[in-house]
Structure formats: structure tokens, C-alpha cells
């Protein structure tokens, strides 16, 4: 059984904030923009090892629900694994996509392949933002500018130009196909 601490719906402690560095990598300093929004303050709350992004108003409204009955709150951004690593989930896509600093566009032919959970190959790469470093968190888009998911750049932009078509250029992390493929694990 987990510790009592993990059952509380609470604000993230400093250490956990630090591990959220993975997605702050993707969007950089824009994380502050997520917190202070024009329509009210938002915050992150931890509930059963999952991080939820909720507005303060919503939080107040949901305060009286017993913890065992509470299933989800606002938007789930990701979860902490057993070893306390933070894993970003695709449900955060809508929020992170506008703030993404590094983007990758995928050709229509390889869209489906990415949505099935495969990595992006050089042959499927449409565009990539300049100056993407290697192992940088990126947001993957389709050519119609629909966000498809998250990834990690396997090669920097410069290297991408040089590699052969079968090399992986973006590691898959999360994609919208998971809504259909792994609906059960979203909660």
C-alpha cells in the first residue's frame, strides 16, 4: 500500500515540481503562463500519483468530495511512476502545444504510423524547428497543424539533414491514438 501521503490531493511539493522539468523542457519558461491565466489562477494538484491541472475555482468546488470517490479533476497532465519519475501524458497536449518551443511536423503518410505508437523516421519528417537540440522535448504536429503528440528529438536539426531515410529522428512519447488504444490506462 502506498503511504498515506500519496492519497492526498495536494499541491506538488518542491521535489515533484523539480521532476516536472520534463515538460518544462518542452515549453521552457512558459510554464508560468500556464499558472497565471487571465481567467483565474490555475494550479497543479497531485492525486493518486497523477498530476492534475485545475483552476482554483474548480478546486474549491470539488473540495468536499471524499478522496476515495474522486476520480479525476480538471485535466490530467501526467503521472509519477513507481520510481517517482514523471511521465507526461497525451491529455496535456492541448495545453502544452501552444507553448511548445520546438515542433516537428510529420508527413501525411507517416501520421498513422505515429498514431500507432511508432517512432518517426526521417522519411516521415516534414518539417522541424531550427536549432532543436538532441534529446529535446518536442511536440509532434500533422501537416494540417493538428497536434498529434509528444516526442523527444533523437537527432538535432543539423543531424536530421544528414541521416539516411530509415533513421529515427523523433522518439515517440505520447500520441492521441492512445485515447482509443489505451483508454483504460488514462485513469
Amino acid at each position: 500500500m502506498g503511504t498515506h501521503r500519496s492519497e492526498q490531493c495536494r499541491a506538488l511539493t518542491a521535489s515533484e515540481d523539480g521532476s516536472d522539468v520534463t515538460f518544462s523542457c518542452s515549453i521552457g519558461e512558459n510554464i508560468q503562463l500556464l499558472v497565471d491565466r487571465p481567467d483565474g489562477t490555475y494550479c497543479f494538484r497531485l492525486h493518486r500519483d497523477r498530476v492534475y491541472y485545475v483552476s482554483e475555482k474548480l478546486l474549491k468546488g470539488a473540495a468536499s468530495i471524499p478522496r476515495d470517490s474522486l476520480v479525476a479533476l480538471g485535466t490530467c497532465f501526467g503521472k509519477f511512476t513507481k520510481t517517482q519519475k514523471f511521465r507526461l501524458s497525451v491529455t496535456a497536449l492541448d495545453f502544452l502545444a501552444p507553448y511548445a518551443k520546438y515542433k516537428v511536423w510529420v508527413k501525411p503518410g507517416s501520421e498513422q504510423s505515429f498514431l500507432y505508437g511508432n517512432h518517426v523516421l526521417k522519411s516521415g519528417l516534414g518539417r522541424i524547428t531550427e536549432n532543436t537540440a538532441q534529446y529535446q522535448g518536442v511536440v509532434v504536429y500533422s501537416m494540417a497543424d493538428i497536434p498529434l503528440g509528444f516526442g523527444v528529438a533523437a537527432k538535432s536539426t543539423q543531424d536530421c539533414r544528414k541521416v539516411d531515410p530509415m533513421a529515427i529522428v523523433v522518439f515517440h512519447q505520447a500520441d492521441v491514438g492512445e485515447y482509443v488504444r489505451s483508454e483504460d490506462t488514462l485513469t
Partner: protein
Amino acid sequence: MGRKLDPSKKEKRGPGRKARKQRGAEVELARFLPPEAESGRKKLSSHARRRAAKRRLGAAGRTAPGGGRRPAAKEQGDSQEGSPIKAVGQDPQRQSGFKDDNAKWLTPAKGKKSLSKRTSVELSSNGEVEEDSWEMEEEEQEDGSSEELMDDYGASSSDEEELLPIEKAALKQKADDRDLSEDDSEEDEVAEETSRQKTGQKEKEDAELQLNLEIDEEFKLPTDEQIEKETAEPPDLHVIHQRIKSNMEVLQDFGVKREEGRTRQEYLALLRRDMAAYYSYSDFLLKMLMDIFPLPELINFLEANEVPRPVTIRTNTLKTRRRDLAQALINRGVNLDPLGKWSKTGLVIYDSSVPIGATPEYLAGHYMLQGASSLLPVMALAPQENERILDMCCAPGGKTSYIAQLMKNTGMILANDSNAERLRSVVGNLHRLGVTNAVVSNCDGRQFPKVLGGFDRVLLDAPCSGTGVISKDPAIKTNKDEKDILRCAHLQKELLLSAIDSVNATSETGGYVVYCTCSITVEENEWVVDYALKKRNVRLVATGLDFGKEGFTRFKDRRFHPSLKSTRRFYPHTHNMDGFFIAKLKKFSNAIPKTQKDEEPAVEAAKPSTGPETVMEPQAKKKKLESSKIAQEQKKPQPALKKRHSLQEQRRPLKAVRPSPHKSYAQVPNRKKHKVKQNGQ
């Protein structure tokens, strides 16, 4: 897409490959056909050829009389497979018999009479042999007339002569039919059917298919032996279907068409048995349906349940617009249309080359697969921005997300469901569609408002027996019985009371509860709403849906409040959507009315109801209450007093006319609205 004919395209000229394309049959064939210039004559049409052949044979017949007919016939006709042009101007002698190897057994066609019996010489000349025809031809050689019509293959142009045996049989059949139909019209006109007519018809019947027979014949209830026989054998669905139809006809015009000595009950019982067998329903369910629907409508309802409803989707206006979505889906190869005038977000899918539940637009959360009837309760609820809404039974989340999109992600929605497994799909859908103002919880709906109360609006899509969605789940036809329906009704009543208690009647914009089920039984719909009307300070208001059938105000031996007319029923056979029932209630007081037997002090609106189940003293629930109409409970002469106490929210409590010894009004000082309880007479 194929290449379209483009008349403006230029013809290719020159020695290249493309210039060598075909230019049409006539032109190409000219390369193979022998030149026409031989005889210097025009090419003849087929009619002309036939006439020429006739002339030839006429000449040959005249020159070769009697016994020489056969050999003459054999030699008749030149090489008829060959060029038609040669027929003209040839020697009559040359026309007898074929020139090639088949001359021994091939003979060209003879006169009319012989041809009528023969199947076809033309077939033979093409290489097929018809044994029968040859025999017949030989018999009738002598009948050959001088006048013959033949085309170049030896076939006659006359219709009669070309008949195959099967065609002849068909002609005969047609003649018989005509005779019979004259008899049939007599039958229909004469309402009473005597055995005289029947025997007269029976002779014809034997020759006819059993099918035609049963439509015309009088409908007789099967005898006991017949019933026994039928139960022993596997059911013949066709016979049963015919019997259902005939039975319905009799029942429509019972006085005239009935059999003497048989009651209506017997006909109805037979009809019920037949329908249960044909459509695979349990007897209980069919009895119930027969109470709800008149007979012709019942058939439509049963038929509609065999067929699935069209697939519909709802545009997610948080992320896209309906016309953009329609355009994107059409580009993927989906055939769709807007749902109707009543919906601005619905689309109906006719067919699709891609799976609708897996397009990138679906994954991006641009639309939700949802039945058309599920859009209606949310439209009736009409949630406003910045309200607090409770969705008590939200799985799989379609209605919740529609509420969220109408509220534009403001305010708060509490999406609750008692089934943790199904909540997963709720969370998935809410995230996919980009809903941010929802809190998902897993409580029993009856625990509200203890968990949380004071909502502006509540939507209760109660768990039900599902008799409206039989087309989605045919097992419902057989596995529902009376116990199930009553159990559902009991749960629904409890949930509805909790829902009403969770609403804040004093909310500026709200105070509404929408109760809906996907069932068409009266026990789960009107009865539950009527119960709530008696038990709580609510009244029915118009749903805002201008189509749909009105709910029942009376049913069998029950009488409901007249305001039940504002509820709406939807059926698969009339509206082409799943069966549904929707009622919109407005709460006008947070007080919970007490019954006579209840000794406890009246409780606050937010606390759960502790009232007993007896409906002894229902208080004035509706401003327009005519309690005398409700025969069951309102026997006490209190309506006048109740009207005065009709619950205007800000009114001070009136003193009781008859003081109640065991009530202490002082116990509830903190209640703003106070309902005086009338006790004892």
C-alpha cells in the same frame, strides 16, 4: 476517379502509338469484313435481310412441292452463318440446306406452325442441338406453309414461333392468373365468406402458390390440432408473418371480419403469441408493448427495433465548427448530412470509407460519437455559463461533454457515476474533447446531496431497462421481466429525489432538474415523475423541445398529474432515434414537504431526505395544482389551504389553521422557506 470524356480533346494524328488508337467498330471491322463492292449493292438492315430471305424461301417452296419438301428444306438456305448479302439475288436451289459439314443434320427453319413447336432453329444453326425440336420439326414438315419469315439465322420474327417451352408455360400461367384474379376481386368485395366461394376458389388454389392463397382467404383461428402441430415443429416464420398480418386486419375491422363464436381475446392472444415468436420477444414485454401502442403502431415499433438507428456524431464546438468538421470528414470519404433543424451540432453519417471512431479528427477531439436522442436532454437542460451542474449518471460522458461545450468550459461540472469501470471512458472522453471544468467522481447517486449539494442544474440520465434501445441490444427482448422493471423504477425514484434535493431552488439562473431515460415503459417514466411531483416541491415545465410525443397523463388504471403532458417521448419508428423519455422539473422551494406521519422536524434543503415512503399528505407541489383530480391521495379537504400556502419562496410561514400538536415550528428557525404542515382533520 476515371478519366472523363472530354470532347474538347484533340484527336491524335500521326504515326505515333497514340495515333493508332481504335476509331470505332465500323471502321475497325472494315479491315476484316469482305469488301461490299462485290455485288455493288447497299448493305441491308436486318429487317431487309429477313424479307429477302423470305422472298427466297417463298420462291424455293413454290419450286419444290410435296415430298421433295424435306430434302428441299435441307438444302434450303445458303450458308446462313456467312455474309447476309449473299442471300439476295441467289439461286433458290442454293438456299436449301447448309453448305458445310453440318448439312447432314442441320436443317433450316420451316413454316410458322412448325416453328411454334420447335424451340429454335437459330440456336441450332449456332451449333447447339435441340433434340426435341428436331423431332417436332420432322413431324411437322408437312405443315410447312409457303409463307415464312426468317432471318439469316433461320429464326422467325414472329413472336409465337420463337417461344421456348418455358415461355409457353409462362403464357399459360398468365392466362390462369387472369382468371383467378377475377375470382379474387369477388372475394374481397364480399365480406362474408361462405364455404361455397371457398370451394370454388380451392380448385384454382391448388394450382397456385400457397402464398397468394393466404392473403385472399378468410383468416381463421387455428384449431387446437393445428396449434399442437405447430408447437411440435420448428416455427415457419413465413406462415406466422402472414398470420400476423391477417390477424391485424381482422382486429381492425372486428365486427365485420370476425369468426362467429370467437372472442377478441382469442385473436389478441394468438397475435401476441405470433408476434412473440416472429420477433423473438418475451410474452411479458409484448403484453406491455401492446398496452402502450395501438396495434398498427406496434408493428412499426417492432419492425424498427430490428434495424439499427443511423450513426450520428456531435461536433465539439470547443475545438471546431460543424461545417469545418463536415468538410474535413467529407475529404476523408465520409457521407454525411446535418442532423436536422433542431440541432446545430449534430451530423448523421450515412456511410464512410474510414472507421468513424478512429479518424484523426476523432482522436483530436473534434467530435463525439453519440446517439441523436442523447442530445435532447442536454438541450432541455440548457446549462448556462458559470453555473454548477451535476451529471448524476454520466458514463460514457457524451452528455457531460455536451454540457461542457455549451458552458464553454466555464463554471463547474460534477460528473458522477457509480460504476468505476465505465468512469474510465468518461475520463478519456472528457480529456479527448478538451473539457477542463469537470470533476469526475465515483459515488452512488443516492448519496447526493450529502457529498455535495446546491447545484444550479442537475441532469439525471437514470439507469433503466433499456426498452427504447432494443435495436442496439436485442437481448433486452427476452431478459426483462416485471421484477426488473419495478426494480429499475424504484432506483429511479430514489435517484430523482436525491437529484431534486441537490438542486438549489434559489439559484438565480437555475433550479432545474432534467430526468431522462432510454426506456419507453410507463413504470419508469411517467410514474417516477409523478411520484416526484407528489414528494417534493417541484413542478413540471416545458422541455423546450417542440417535437416528440407528449407523455401519458393516464395509463391503464393509473392517473397522473395533467402537467405530465409537458414531458416528451421519442420512439424509434416515428423519430428514427432511440426510444427516449425526457422531463424537465423546476424546483420552487428548498423545503422538503413532510408527510403526516413524520414526527421529525423538517430538514434543510441540503440535507438528505429522511421522509417516509408513504404518500399520506402530499403538499402543494405545483402552483396550478388541482389536487382533486388525483384520485388516489388527495382526499382531504385541504386544497384551498394549500393554495394559499403555495410556495412563493420569500413568503413568511402562515400560521396553521389547525394546530398540530406534535409539530414544533420553533425547531426550524434557520429555514428561510417554511412549509406549514397540515396534520389531522
